[in-house]
């Protein structure tokens, strides 16, 4: 069964269509890579799914229910987690506090006034700090983390939410080769147990993690297939050769 289904989705800013009649289906348990030159509409597509932008046309369904009209926090509560292109974490809070905020089944402010639980030793916390490699940085104020660590922390935040669908916008942007490799290992661990949509530019990273790749161009779907199919697709080659080339 499809977890996420975009049907004929468009997003227009005035006359300009950032997304133009896009269809996209993501199945449970898959890791989908979203590829496309700058300005193709990848970030906008994620914004439409999480409710940060409103669709001009078309439907967005999560597990069969239309979520296009819900507000951001409601969509998040339905199990959509989002990592932003520009990493955003709580810079004045420690790594542990960041993850504490993200972990919550209970979002009601009044109930949270009565919650003083000590977070230490919680199983999921240990698993996730292990996975993102920040275990011994628990008490570090996150504003002091390196860029790569900040990216991982944000991935950790999204995982802490325990979402059914994870949207990752350029998770390796600005990372060193080594960090990128470590990130690909994180994603490979998540594969299977989680459903992910990953926007990525780095082709070696994509080769490392992807099953199915969707290529977007000018707000439209250009091609969809395995890595070899995509690399040999003349249309894709054309688009990428026109810009920076596929590497």
């Amino acid at each position, binding site marked *: 069964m499809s977890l996420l289904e975009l049907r004929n989705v468009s997003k227009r800013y005035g006359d300009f269509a950032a997304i133009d009649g896009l269809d996209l289906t993501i199945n449970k348990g898959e890791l989908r890579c979203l590829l496309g030159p700058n300005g193709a509409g990848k970030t906008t597509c994620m914004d439409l799914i*999480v409710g*940060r932008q409103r669709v001009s046309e078309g439907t967005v369904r999560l597990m069969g229910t239309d979520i296009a009209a819900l507000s*951001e*926090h409601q969509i*998040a*509560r339905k199990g959509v*987690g*989002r990592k*932003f292109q520009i990493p*955003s*974490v*709580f*810079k*004045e*809070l420690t790594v542990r*506090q*960041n993850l*504490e*905020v*993200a972990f*919550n089944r209970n*979002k009601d*402010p*009044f109930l*949270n*006034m*009565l*919650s*003083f*639980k000590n977070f230490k030793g919680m199983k999921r916390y240990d698993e996730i700090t292990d996975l993102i490699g920040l275990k011994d940085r628990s*008490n*570090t*104020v996150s*504003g*002091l983390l390196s860029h790569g660590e900040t990216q991982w922390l944000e991935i950790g*935040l999204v995982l802490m*939410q325990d979402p059914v669908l994870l949207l990752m916008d350029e998770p390796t942007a600005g990372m060193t080769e080594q960090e990128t490799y470590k990130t690909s290992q994180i994603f490979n661990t998540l594969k299977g147990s989680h459903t992910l949509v990953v926007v990525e530019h780095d082709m070696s990273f994509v080769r490392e993690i992807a099953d199915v790749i969707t290529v977007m161009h000018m707000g439209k779907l250009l091609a969809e297939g395995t890595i070899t199919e995509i690399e040999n697709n003349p249309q894709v080659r054309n688009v990428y050769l026109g810009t920076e080339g596929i590497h």
Partner: protein
Amino acid sequence: MSANIYHNRKAQWLAYIGLFLLLALVPVLFDSPFLLNQLARYAVFAMLAVSVSLVWGYGGILSLGQGIAFGLAAYGMGMTMQMQFQDPVSDPVPSFMLTNDLSTLPLLWEPFWSTPVGLALTIAVPTIFFIGFGAMMFQARVAGVFVAIMTLAMLAAWYAMAYDMQPFTSGFNGISPPMPFEFAGVSIDPYSPTAYLICVGFLAALTLAVKLLMQSKFGLVVQAIRDDPERVRFLGYNVAYYQVIVFAISGFIAACGGLCWVMVVQYVSPTSLELTLSVSAVIWAAVGGRLSLLGAILGAYLVNGLQSYMGDELQDVWMIVLGSIFIGVVLFLPRGLVGLIEDALGYFTGKSETETATVAIERTV
């Protein structure tokens, strides 16, 4: 690696409780009605500073309108005390109304015949107003400097109203209840240890409650919202809801301050709603350290103490002095005076987290 004791929660609680015990001992140590009254006023200012520390330091909401809650409560208390003096049969209408051509008590004033109802309104009206005003702002995702502008404009509107509705508020002259506040048959002399201890009691209870609240999950989410509301939203929290609650709690605290203020000065006028007071409260909190409730309290005591004991010739230029202090703090002590304490304690007990805090602070405002 030892941690800075400044960040130790137990040590923090001890410091808070120590300070309040010290304040509570003042009437035992000094037998000066004048001093007690002055320190009671400082305790009220400290409540305002705590409300600023909560809403701005923790919540990232720069409100220049804390005086709204303070002023509304001050009028509520003034009306309550005035009506304690009036007699339902022989003298039902305050004299300033008679001189303003009102021969019967306005409906607005009727509930204040009852002291419990008057006190309830004194606190409830500002708090509910802050809920409504906050809901309006935060639902619309007003943030940053726009919050400052909107709260400022709202404050100005209330000021104008208090000033203009002379028959109801006595306008510029303000209301001077002839008798001290009386509660459960006891008259609370503004210069008495009782009045002082009530103010310190309010300050202590409110501060400790906020301190506890900020250690809960709720407090953590509030601080996360200060850092990045968008991120919090996409983690599934209703950000506006949280902001409204923090704003309302800060209004409640300021209202308690307004109530105590009129109890110890026995007078209320539009000055409670003046811009000066609300901006000063922000400065007190900034000077002491807005990220610490204790810092905000110290800021309120120190700055007001300075103003009181500065030579008379400097009183005229007080706002310039205050402004200079503020600029100095913003430039050189972004964490306020408690930042110095933090550094000093870090120097002696371990540096691990001190540096982290410094970096972290640079981001806010």
